[in-house]
């Protein structure tokens, strides 16, 4: 793995901190706030890393007179993302998406983070519903570097959308997908946006939307809550399961303002049906024989920061789905979360993949 002429440096976002035990050193990845302690008996090795700013492995071996296996130590630090390839890092510095690549590089070695970023860029994400959450998610994903989108929504921008959706006043009266396409093209001129100007109401509509582009969808995100999110999630999920496409059920819609929805990887995670079965078991005991008063067209309001928080989690998850590595897997597989507006606390519930699930029980790991 190690090449004698490869140049290394300590990653700028990594700090090395001494501890009270002189042989134990703390390595802190500031991007992801992760800490790992290393017991390093040979102080020469730690001196070497603390000075690591572009030396080749050959130079290090020559400069540091030690019997310790420098190449193994360097290899370990590199594979675990504490040091980086100096020459690749210089290229990342000049890259417009240097922040995103450097973030991914907290999980993947430098050469791999570049490869995965290129994969992310060429991914195709289908967003169904371009209101509050959909408008945020699409722009955040575009700012992550993703270049291929299909946007589905038949609605026009109205005054009442502006308190939480990412549209301008001059967009009022325009189709949401048109305004959003223009926004994404302002962010990045080199993107492809396909638009579906109709309401997705059934599984067949989802299949049609997925076939619009020649580029296979890598991820589908449900941000549509009409007639309600359970209905849209069910038919979107069915279509995605049939095509083995990962999908995310976003939160943040009416009546579920601060929900963080699950990520579903067909054959790997709990599917929509597994989660519904789990939710049914959760009904509080005191509500078992209870009926809910039905009311039409409820409006419980919404606000920008809650849309921003829900959308942020969808974007986090999207990145984890699109990066094909077990070092940074989707966190929301088999989970639903909730952000508490009053306390800023997060709570998650877990739902296992059911072995005999009628939706996913027979699907083998993709």
């Amino acid at each position, binding site marked *: 793995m190690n090449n004698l002429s490869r140049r290394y*440096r300590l990653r700028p976002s990594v700090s090395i901190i001494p501890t009270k035990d002189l042989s134990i050193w703390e390595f802190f990845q500031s991007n*992801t706030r992760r800490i790992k302690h290393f017991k390093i008996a040979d102080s020469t090795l730690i001196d070497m890393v603390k000075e690591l700013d572009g030396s080749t492995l050959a130079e290090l071996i020559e400069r540091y007179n030690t019997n310790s296996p420098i190449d193994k130590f360097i290899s370990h630090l590199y594979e675990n993302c504490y040091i980086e390839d100096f020459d690749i890092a210089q290229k990342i510095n000049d*890259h417009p998406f240097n922040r995103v690549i450097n973030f991914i590089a907290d999980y993947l070695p430098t050469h791999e983070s570049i490869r995965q970023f290129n994969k992310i860029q060429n991914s195709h994400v289908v967003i169904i519903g371009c209101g509050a959450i959909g408008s945020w998610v699409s722009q955040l994903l575009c700012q992550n570097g993703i270049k291929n989108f299909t946007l589905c929504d038949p609605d026009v921008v109205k005054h009442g959308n*502006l308190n939480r959706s990412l549209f301008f006043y001059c967009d009022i009266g325009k189709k949401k997908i048109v305004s959003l396409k223009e926004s994404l093209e302002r962010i990045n001129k080199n993107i492809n946006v396909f638009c579906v100007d109709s309401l997705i109401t059934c599984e067949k509509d989802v299949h049609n939307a997925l076939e619009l582009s020649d580029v296979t969808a890598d991820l589908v995100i449900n941000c549509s809550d009409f007639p309600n999110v359970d209905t849209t999630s069910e038919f979107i999920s069915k279509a995605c399961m049939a095509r083995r496409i990962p999908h995310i059920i976003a939160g943040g819609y009416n009546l579920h303002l601060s929900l963080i929805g699950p990520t579903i990887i067909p054959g790997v995670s709990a599917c929509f049906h597994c989660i519904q079965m789990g939710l049914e078991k959760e009904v509080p005991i005191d509500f078992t024989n209870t009926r809910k008063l039905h*009311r039409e067209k409820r409006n*419980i*309001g919404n606000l920008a920061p809650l849309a*921003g928080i829900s959308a942020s989690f969808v974007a986090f998850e999207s990145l984890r789905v699109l990066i094909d590595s077990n070092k940074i897997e989707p966190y929301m597989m088999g989970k639903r979360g909730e952000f508490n*507006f009053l306390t800023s606390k997060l709570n998650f519930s877990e739902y296992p993949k059911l072995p005999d699930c009628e939706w996913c029980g027979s699907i083998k790991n993709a």
Partner: protein
Amino acid sequence: MKKPYLRDGVDVYIDSSTDGSSNVTFVFLSTRKRIQLKVRDSLLLTLPLMNGDNSIRDLENRSGASSEEITKFIGYLEANGIVVQEDWFDQILLDQDYKKLIEKQLYFLLDISNSPDLVCNIQQKIKDTSVAIVGIGSIGSWMLVELIQMGFEKFKIFDFKEIKEDSISRHAFFDSNMLGQAKSEYYKKVGTKINPKTKIESDFVSLKTDSTFLNKLDDIDIIINCADEPYIGYSSIFLSRYAINKGKLLFVAGGFDAHLGCLGELIVPHKTPCADCYNEYFRESLKDWKPSPHPVKDRVKGFGGLPSLTAFSASSGCLAILRYFIDELAFLETAGGRGEFKFNDYSIDAFEVSKNPDCEVCSE
């Protein structure tokens, strides 16, 4: 109350029994608060009729309950924020165009405050508050967008840099056609594009080099510090000392390089810890945590970040400000501390920070 309206933000669960009454549970969706009542079946029939179309006389005619019973029942439900007058929205004394833009937020505030009068007071306060954002980069630009969406209308924004190519993964409404333009000038335009009635003064200036900088904040009610140069600790103490002296609110944002996960804190003069208190707290708690000098001299471009982490930090900052505007006393009960979001496992670490009784800046 002429025509009661069962609030949209309250779910109603009915558990019927055979003794002529039912257990009714009202669940407040935003706060998850529950109220349980035992309700006679005749009165229960009035609940689905509380849709804003029916008067008390209508409820009486269609339920069999007496007018007196219904009035008492509605009085209880109104006092507890379960029903409101059907025209509560029309009664909010704010400009019609303004209400149209923030309708959803007014519904949200009703859900939290349970009172149309409080909704009006909170939103009027938001409308009248002048905000300064110092540093209109990644966090600052997202906070500006969200605060405008929340109905704030008066801003001064300060920055001394231009939009660059790598702003693409940082800034709200990034526009690749605007490379080289001053951030302060660009975000003035963005702000008025969201709400044309927003008044934004922009200033191409650095707080570090302009000795008259603080004078520019004299007519400001809340200062938002997103200036991470030379570093956030320096700019926060500089602005905090001024804010405490002048009795202004200061929000110290998080989300910067090396502080990606910090959620930021709202400083209320003499009531919450000030930036010096925070500085002292972290100086003491981190006294044994001394990173070795870093071999890479210019590390600026070596830090990572995600636009969604920026949006998360900015959004949680805006929520903290909104919580203060909704209920200052409730906010102060839990104020004083710093949260840190961990991308790795979606957890939030919380550090409780108290006011330093010996603080030379904020102790009385």
